[in-house]
Structures are given as structure tokens and as C-alpha cells.
């Protein structure tokens, strides 16, 4: 029996709306990710809590448990590990600015993402310089991804842009807050 034309049109329209709904749901999810990250970073002036929030964001919203969060040495020549998880913290304790991919990202202030969105030959997936305006005050290095995360997605790149600014501002504020109480 031949399907009436109007019924076919209704089915096609239904499929189209279902696809649109799925797309909107995904967009909402992406926006929620960014909102949650910004909210968590802005919610504290405690240095350790900011570092903890960055770790949680990378683990739970990006999908990596191999991360180093670096601060900048006073003479601005070295990245110094402030917090890490899942990496060799002795080997990666300090990195010279300008040296290797991590050091180069710190020197340029530009986010590095491996071309494939997966760990490269040095097991680096992304380097996110933390910037206050044009000054780099630290860096987040992401190494391996979780086993079920095949590669970085577009939303992860948006998340890196957000982290570059908001994580930097939160860490900077936390440092100022600590100094204020130390001097009081």
C-alpha cells in the first residue's frame, strides 16, 4: 500500500525536528559546561581551591587525568609546577620558558593544541597559557586523555579559551588575596 504523501511529509518533518532538538540539547550542554567552569573559577579567592577547580574542570569537563598546572617564576624564566595529577612530577617540575612545546606556548602566550586533538609524540595534547591581558602568569599542560575520550572536541577548544582568561584571573586574585592577608 502506498503511504499518503502528507503522512510522508509529517514523518520527514518529525525527523527534522528530532535532529534539531538533539542539536539544541548538545548546544545547551556545551554552554552549561562553559558556565559551570566560569562559575567554579569565580567562586573562590583561595589559591588551593582555584587549583582544585581547574583540576576538576579538566578531569570532568574536558576529560584528562594527566595534567600539570604551572605558575611563573619571579624572574619569568621558568614554569614551576603548582599542582599536578597523573604525570611524572619530578621530570616535569620545572620547564624553561621557550623550551619545548610547553615552554614555547608560555613564551608566545598562544594556546597549543596538537593537530590531531590527541596526545602528540611527546604525549602533549594541549598547552594553555594563563594570561592577564598580554602577560602570561602560568600554564596548564594537558597530556593524555581518558581512555574513552577519542580526541578533543570543538567545545574543549572553547573551554581552553575560557580557562586561559578565567583561570588566570582567579589565580591572580587568589595571590593578591593571600598577599593582602600576609601583609595585614
Amino acid at each position, binding site marked *: 500500500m502506498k503511504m499518503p504523501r502528507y503522512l510522508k511529509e509529517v514523518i520527514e518533518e518529525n525527523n527534522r525536528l528530532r535532529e534539531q532538538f*538533539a542539536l539544541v*540539547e*548538545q548546544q*545547551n*550542554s556545551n554552554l*552549561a*559546561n562553559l*558556565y*559551570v*567552569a566560569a*562559575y*567554579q573559577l569565580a567562586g573562590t579567592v583561595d589559591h588551593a581551591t582555584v587549583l582544585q*577547580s581547574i583540576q*576538576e*574542570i579538566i*578531569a*570532568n*569537563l*574536558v*576529560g584528562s*587525568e594527566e595534567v600539570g598546572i604551572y605558575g611563573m617564576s619571579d624572574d619569568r624564566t621558568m614554569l614551576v609546577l603548582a599542582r599536578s595529577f597523573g604525570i611524572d612530577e619530578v621530570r616535569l617540575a620545572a620547564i624553561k620558558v621557550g623550551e619545548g612545546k610547553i615552554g614555547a606556548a608560555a613564551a608566545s602566550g598562544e594556546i597549543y593544541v596538537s593537530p590531531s586533538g590527541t596526545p602528540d609524540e611527546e604525549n602533549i595534547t594541549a598547552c594553555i597559557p594563563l594570561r592577564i591581558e598580554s602577560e602570561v602568569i602560568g600554564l596548564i599542560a594537558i597530556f593524555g586523555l*581518558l*581512555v*574513552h*575520550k577519542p580526541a578533543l572536541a570543538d567545545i574543549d577548544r572553547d573551554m581552553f579559551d575560557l580557562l586561559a582568561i578565567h583561570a588566570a584571573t582567579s589565580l591572580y586574585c587568589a595571590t593578591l588575596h593571600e598577599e593582602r592577608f600576609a601583609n595585614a
Partner: protein
Amino acid sequence: MITKKKILIVDDSQTVLLMEKMILSKGPYTIVTATNGEEAVAKAAAEQPDLILLDVVMPKMNGFDACKRLREQELTRTTPIIMVTTRGEESNVENGYASGCTDYITKPINAPELLAKLRGFLGE
């Protein structure tokens, strides 16, 4: 009138709790939270949720042990439990099922996937 289903979210990470609350808050759900396995077992008995989202790595009592305890409790013996884990390895998933979970989902959470699972278990 839509009857809201109650969901217990268990995670020690405030980031994840906030994320999951945001995903679910627009749906017909009442949200209850706990931040470790012990609290989850107590809250599940008191609140009798329709479904539990359970993290694995938590202080005091991990998700696997909490899941076993929930299955021992009469009130939560058949409550759907979805394990939410960063560890997607097969052995970890097997441990989840062995402890009595109904299903699992990996972090980073994919909202459409989570909502689809909830709709399936809650018969929406």
C-alpha cells in the same frame, strides 16, 4: 499535572554536581545531592529517589561499595543506579555491574546521552 521524578546525584566534585544539576534542572526532576558514598546510602533511604547517579571515586565510601550497600537496602534494591565514571576501562565497568549498578555513563558527561538514559529508565 506532571509528577516530578526524584533523582539523587552523588559526587564529591562540586563541578560535577553543578553540571548535572544544570542538565537536569530543566526537566521534570527534583534533585537531591550527596557528596560521598555514606551520605548517599543514608539519603537514598530517607529520600527514596526514583533514580541514582553515582560517582565511583569518592571519599569515605566509593561508588562500588555504596552501590552494594544500596542493593542490600530493601528501599533501594530495585532503584535504577547509573554509575558516572571517568574510568571507562572494561574492568571498571565490570566492577560497576558486579556491584549492582543498572547502567553507566562516562565523564565528561554528554547531556543528550544522560537525558536519554534517564528518560529510558524513568519511562518518560
